[in-house]
């Protein structure tokens, strides 16, 4: 690992001001630090968001749950409010990585990184959430732009995410055997943002499956997924599964998620 400067801003404004040039914002560091150790990233400075208390709050208001960008997976998993309002979201957070990852990793970090196999993007897209930044609000449908790409501008900082409380929702992760990221993860929901089926792990980034959403919008039942096939075009193929396998898993996992929702 190369040496770097380390800064601890006390406010969002200060953090944004420092995040210029080769400096990098660091949230929980569960992706950035490993890539620095491997020499794949060498920022000149790390701007640690950990001292900005405002970014950790979790609050439930009428119709929505707003989670600060620096809330750890563990804090979301353990939040009584989240468990009551959107149990699928708390459960998703409880199954990310291992205990160490959950104690450090954050919602904002996961979204800004947008790993194609991460869990959180599927919840954000699958619930039709709103991503708040230091300068604007971005709808989930506009936020994810493919492999590690998002709508965030250079130096733009996620502050929180508002999840509309759905009538029903469920996330099922089929794990890649080695990394235990999702080989395919499916988040389903029905609520204020409509009927949504968001898939992570299978493609270059999280995406929705219209064919399944249409069937489920008509009739929210596992059997609605029967007979729906998902095209393998553009899906990932790697050591752990072909595109055809991933495509086949999507309706299977959707059906199971609906059954458990």
């Amino acid at each position, binding site marked *: 690992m190369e040496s770097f400067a380390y800064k601890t801003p006390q406010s969002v404004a200060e953090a944004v001001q420092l995040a210029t040039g080769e400096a990098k914002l660091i949230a929980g560091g569960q992706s950035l630090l490993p890539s620095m150790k491997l020499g794949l990233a060498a920022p000149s400075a790390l701007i640690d968001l950990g001292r900005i208390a405002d970014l950790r709050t979790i609050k439930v208001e009428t119709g929505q749950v707003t989670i600060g960008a620096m809330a750890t997976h563990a804090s979301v998993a353990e939040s009584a409010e989240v468990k009551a309002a959107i149990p699928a979201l708390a459960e998703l957070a409880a199954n990310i990585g291992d205990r160490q990852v959950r104690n450090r990793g954050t919602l904002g970090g996961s979204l800004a990184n947008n790993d194609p196999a991460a869990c959180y993007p599927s919840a954000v897209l699958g619930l039709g959430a709103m991503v708040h930044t230091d300068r604007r609000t971005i709808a989930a449908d506009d936020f994810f732009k493919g492999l590690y790409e998002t709508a965030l501008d250079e130096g733009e900082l996620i502050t929180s995410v508002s999840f509309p409380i759905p009538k029903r929702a469920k996330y099922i992760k*089929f794990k890649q*055997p080695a*990394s235990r990221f999702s080989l395919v993860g499916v988040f389903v929901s029905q609520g204020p943002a409509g009927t949504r089926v968001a898939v992570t792990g299978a493609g270059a980034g999280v995406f929705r499956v219209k064919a399944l959403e249409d069937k489920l919008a008509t009739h929210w039942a596992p059997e609605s997924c029967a007979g729906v096939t998902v095209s393998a075009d553009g899906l990932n193929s790697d*050591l*752990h*599964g072909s595109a055809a*396998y991933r495509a*086949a898993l999507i309706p299977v996992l959707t059906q199971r998620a609906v059954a458990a929702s």
Partner: protein
Amino acid sequence: MNARQSFIGQRIERREDARFLTGNGQYTDDITLAHQTYAYFLRSPYAHAKIKSIQIAAAKQAAGVVAVFTGADFREVGGVPCGWLITSVDGTPMKEPKHPVLCDDKVLFVGDAVALVVAETLEQARAAAGLIEVDYEELPAVVDVDRAKGAAAVVHDIAPDNVCYEWALGDKAAVDAVFAQAPHVTTLQFKNNRLIPNAIEPRAANASYNPSDESYTLYVTSQNPHVHRLLMCAFVLGIPEHKLRVVAPDVGGGFGSKIFLYIEETALVWASKRVKRPIKWTCERGESFQTDAHGRDHSTRAELATDLDGKFLAMRVHTEANLGAYLSTFASSVPTILYATLLAGQYTTPKIYCAVTGVFTNTTPVDAYRGAGRPEATYVVERLVETAARELKIDQAEIRRRNFITSFPYATPVALTYDTGNYEAHMAAAIELADVKGFGARKLASEAKGLKRGIGYSAYIEACGLAPSNIAGALGARAGLYEAGEVRVHPTGKVTVFTGSHSHGQGHETTFAQVVAARLGIPLEDVDIQHGDTGKVLFGMGTYGSRSLSVGGTAIIKAVDKVIAKGKKIAAHLMEASDTDIEFDNGVFKVAGTDKSVPFASIALTAYVPHNYPLDKLEPGLNENAFYDPTNFTFPAGTYICEVEVDPQTGATRVDRFTACDDFGNIVNPMIVEGQVHGGIAQGIGQALLEHAVYDSQSGQLLSGSYMDYAMPRADDLPEFRIGTVSGTPCTHNPLGVKGCGEAGAIGSPPAVINAICDAIGVSDLPMPATPHVVWSAIQQAH
């Protein structure tokens, strides 16, 4: 049985665990010497390339750099040797290309070392390595085992067809004749997947040179420090053997991968004299993936001829074995001597022929990994047997029963003589413990949930206790395979035992102490076990092949018996009796038929304070050593039964039950034995379901080069094992009656798992690892 002898068979907690579990282990990387420097190896990013030039001037000038070495510096020293000569069927010796310490003109696999940088800190060494400019001319690479022979890419000029040897065992014509007439033939074609050992402690070394007496000290992660010393001194560096001390301190797992002499520790020893300072190197995890010797990687066509009642008539096996880019220390013997000789399994198959082609490829060298040839053989036999049973519609236990060897000693058609065994006993025990009777009901319950349930057996045998040196020598071994032990009794009767076996997870410090304390009738805490230091231990061949207790333990017992014999003479003198009238029982020397006795500790004191002592007939002191060369292999055997539940929509397999009933002969510490079986089964299930070292077939890059892509078995991948070590048939040719248990789990389990999945989804074969994707694909193809 008396109190002290009852140490045998007791679940005594491992004495070494206190230091390991509290972070007080002393591993190679924990050792930092005065004036320490640090090493970093620059490695090839290509699988196969010519080194056109290498520029080190900038690296030499970099901050903190002490020295930079390249292949040119090592031209005068030898290559890292291979310890087993395999002779091809045409009588020619195997091809033995030089394995240079650092690559000179060519790199042969991704991770091959091209330069060694020594600096004040590791960071400085790594940074300087980044300044070295190597001009490579990339060459076509060959990595797949069944594409290597005759490939356009030639790994070594001395083997233009990439063949190291074409070896065979058995009477081909006789076997072919049986097959030509056989009523039924079962045929399978499969790969035994390549594995990466993944010891929790990566390899490490710290070498230093003392100019005052021209001696070297090497701390190294080794399963056999004396073998490291011998090979390094005599074959590579030409250092006088008495001038190199090799210490293998606490070692965090080996599984075979730390048997071998690697180039890194060799380079460090050589360089330590040049820089006149100690040099430390600790492998990074990514380097471990690329450079620890891998395991398995066979491509095999196997056939079993039977009659219609399921009686085995003959077996015919053709295997291509991937040896990697160079011949590692025991690489040549693993897919030949340790493989083909096990193809009789537990059965009376009268005729067996096995041909093995060992090939070079542009991959990491392949060598012994937990089981070493025997898992591959067991996979052949037990997949064939279960498939034949299915084809002939004979119950899987019944077909085995019809073919079990029941009379001992039994000479197999593949060169071994089994001394003892009772295969029906452990199969019956396994069937009971696995509740095979209830399988039908469980299958129905699974079906009600939309899941498929299957059951698979594996009745393995292994040859352990390596090895009778004369037999090994006749088969090409370039070393003896005995073990040495020394028992040093101190004046107060306390005992230090020095053993050539090395413990790196096996619990020798406990098991060996139990054996010695029981034999001497003294408290367990009066016995210490020392190992892993050529400066303390007289000699040793080390730990592998489940040999430590049967061979190393026997050497210790022989030394203990010499101590007792000498003690009897001292006791006879003290009690004014004849030597032949002295009995030794539970720590006390007695005159037979009298109440006269002297305790062991008094004899020890007398030996060291010989005021009243037969000095004219007997030397003072009480210190004996012994070498033990076994007269035969030992033959642990067992039956494993695996029950799986498969989700047909996703292909995911859950191992629901795993039952292992082993016959290890006599058991000294059942808790340690069960722990060994647990670990072995975890690795075997890992091979069957998860682990796979995959190279890109074009570029030769290791695709599964980290834990993100190489799946290690984790606790939640495994069921709670049902372990029923049976009251065994003691080994007939060592005094402890022990057979060895370290590898059984890894040997016996993979075919049981695959047999179970095949049963569940109704297919005749499945590749390993049977990942969800693989199983799903097989289900799709079957429909």
